[in-house]
């Protein structure tokens, strides 16, 4: 069932994010937990990769390390051509403004701001004054052009997640990191969000997504499987079925 990615790749498909021998340990002494253990992985440009594994397998930590949200204990993290392993806080802030976008299970919108203010926030934090039309266009792209002036609590979960995606995409990031983006959504809302992500990838976006929903992983171009902080399996062009089998095996 293991299929390794052996086909030669054109240079244009070089890694958008690459982890080289990355380890991350929490706690110390006997309580130490190695959440990520010597992981080598490339996330190629313009592809959508699902990171899967049972709870506690280190999926989220892997994502956080790749996004520069978490320091690594050893190894190297490359974003495009840039080594961000030892980037300063200011550099990482700049990265989050320009080159990285985030979407989370719990939406993480700012409750006091309207949808359009939430979307405009990263640009404004970067010191730009986005034109209203620009922000509206991004919202329209996620199908929420008519919800611009609503606050998060006036939106459904699926709508909130789409606002979060719009906020992540407004800076046109090189990589979009998504942590269980459909985890809190019903299947209809989840499908809408996944369709949206698929369309973005087809337009050239790179997405790294943590999930344990086989249906979500089936929409991705590739899947990697983690257990105890290590990559134990990889799949290209996964389907719900080919994803489910190794998952069941890992749970056992």
């Amino acid at each position, binding site marked *: 069932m293991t299929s390794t990615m052996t086909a030669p790749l054109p240079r244009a498909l070089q890694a958008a994010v690459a982890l080289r021998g990355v380890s991350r340990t929490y706690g110390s002494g006997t309580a130490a937990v190695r959440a990520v253990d010597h992981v080598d992985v490339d996330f190629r440009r313009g592809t959508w990769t699902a990171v899967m594994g049972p709870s506690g397998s280190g999926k989220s930590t892997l994502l956080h390390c790749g996004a520069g949200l978490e320091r690594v204990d050893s190894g190297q993290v490359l974003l495009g051509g840039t080594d961000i392993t030892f980037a300063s806080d200011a550099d990482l802030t700049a990265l989050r403004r320009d080159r990285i976008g985030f979407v989370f299970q719990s939406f993480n919108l700012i409750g006091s701001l309207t949808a359009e203010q939430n979307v405009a926030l990263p640009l404004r*934090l970067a010191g730009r004054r986005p034109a209203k039309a620009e922000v509206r266009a991004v919202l329209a792209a996620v199908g929420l052009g008519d919800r611009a002036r609503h606050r998060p609590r006036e939106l459904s979960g699926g709508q909130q997640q789409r606002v979060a995606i719009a906020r992540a995409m407004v800076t046109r990031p090189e990589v979009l990191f998504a942590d269980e983006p459909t985890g809190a959504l019903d299947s209809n809302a989840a499908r809408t969000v996944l369709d949206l992500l698929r369309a973005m990838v087809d337009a050239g976006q790179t997405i790294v997504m943590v999930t344990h929903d086989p249906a979500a992983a089936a929409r991705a171009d590739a899947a990697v499987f983690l257990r105890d902080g290590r990559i134990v399996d990889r799949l290209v062009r996964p389907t719900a079925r080919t994803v489910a089998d190794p998952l069941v095996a890992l749970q056992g």
Partner: protein
Amino acid sequence: MLRLSCSTFTERWPLFIGAALTVSLGVALVQSSLLVLISAATLDVPAGLSAADTVRFTEGAAVAVTVSALTLGFSAFLAVFIVGSTFAFTVALRRRDLALLRLAGGGRGQLHRLLLGEAVLLGVVGTAAGVPAGIATMSFQSWLLSTLGFVPDGFTAQWRIWILGVSVGVGLGVALAGVLVAARRAAEVRPLEALRDSGDAARVMTVGRWVIGVLFTAGAIALIILAPLGGAAGSMAMAVNVALCGSVALSALSPLLVPGVARLLPTGNGAVLGELARANMRDGVRRSAATAAPLIVLVALVLGQSGALTSFAAAGEAEQRRGTAADLVVEATGPVGPRVAAVAGVAGASTEIEVPVAITRSSGEDIEGETGLALVVDPAEYARAHPGAGSLDGLRGRSVAGGPGGEGGSPGDTLGVRVGGTDLGPLPVVAAVPAGIGGGAEVLLPPGLAPAAEVVAGMSRTFVALEPGADAGAVAAALAGIGTVHSVEDWIARDSAARDSTSTSVFLVVMGLGGIYALIGVINAVVIGAASRRPEFAAVRATGLTRGQVVRMALVESWGVTAVGLMLGVVATAGTLAAVLGTTSAVTGHTTLALPWPLVLSVVAGAFLVTGLTSLLTSWSATRPNPVALLGARE
């Protein structure tokens, strides 16, 4: 960024209203106390007063200045403390929001500027509300001062235009000072903290808290040690400041202490609500500490100050009792000594006549002046009537002795003495009676030195010792023609009652408004704390608690924190009381402690009542929405 601040404002208004309220009350209190102080200090002596009345007037004004200065000091302290603790709390409650901003690309500098910007906004709003509130406070304080007799009737504090500048400075200053440390910490928030409530966000005990805690503990201990050495006047201030230092130290350390003390509280035979409340207290250390902090300060200041005042008053009374060997006291005008002594059955009579005095003392370059009262005494009789006063044999001719007031110098000094309008020239100090904790005349004068007109008009008291076997009633009846006769016990009791009412008045003026301010700080913390707990309340209701149970849980928790705050406040108070014991022992030779129990009990009951009511109201309103609606709307 400002727009973000504004929209945050509309969203989290209880937080900001609370913070602005503390700023405005602080501004009001400081502004009013400063204006009252300046007005009292520049009070002109009315024309046409006699020398004695002038002394009385300036003495009264001096007390008014001291009391206003104390009020100002406490107000400023409370403003800084309460605004600081409120702001730190509000910033801490918004950590997740701030981490979200970081996640969306916000830099540290931006967060820092955002919070400082908010502080400026709150400072401006608070000042705008505080200035008019200060005018109302000022008329109240003036009324209080004149009602309690510290200033003459019709005293009004003068408005000064430059106070606007001071108030703006105070408002912005306390707001910025309050947020500075909190903002620096918040700017260190790591973006990942938006996703989980752990790590640094959960760490409440910061280096700053440690430094403040240790520093102020050391300060409190130093004051306890130094207070007995401060003399009758200085030790009082030091003793009260022990509670002040202690309460700051304990507030800073309270995140360490609250969970520990919480463990001691009874949960009520395994009742689940009690356990839940106790767990919440320990888990919500930040909130528990923020509620406890103003309470600690309130309790420590109120109980420390009042305990010190009543103890010193009691020590003064006991000292007077020990220092008086007589049976009757005759209050009259002028030198009545010979007439009293002539009455059958009188063994000895020490007549002491009050005259107004101005003392100048030159030490090196400086010339210090002091106005007060002098007593014209018969040295031999005085020594007999006041055991412990020592020998005054040398007090005759052109000389003076230091009085119990303690400002009259010691043997070997030379004082410039002026009685009424007459300059007596430089006089040697030949003896000194021990300074009393209750104060008294600055100097003792031998007979025949002070101008006769002043002596004849001076109030006098004559301590009468009876011959063995003499009938006190008969002697008193015979003396009634000379002046008002009291038994010594009655006289001391009346005298100390007068002192008590003075110290109660001082307490009212100094602590009254400050206490209310601190109380509002407590209420504020409870309201802010509950306002941010809607999702948590919703979660426990979803687990099966009824609304009533949630409200009860919050109440138990609130009372738990109140108990902790009271306990720590009492610990800080104990510091002051230790200083009082040391001081009374050092000054009078006897340790004295008297606690105003009715006040202690009403502070305890009032604290539980206020936090309980506030908690009921806020948790009731926080549980009004359907819990499912709140659980669904995760932001």
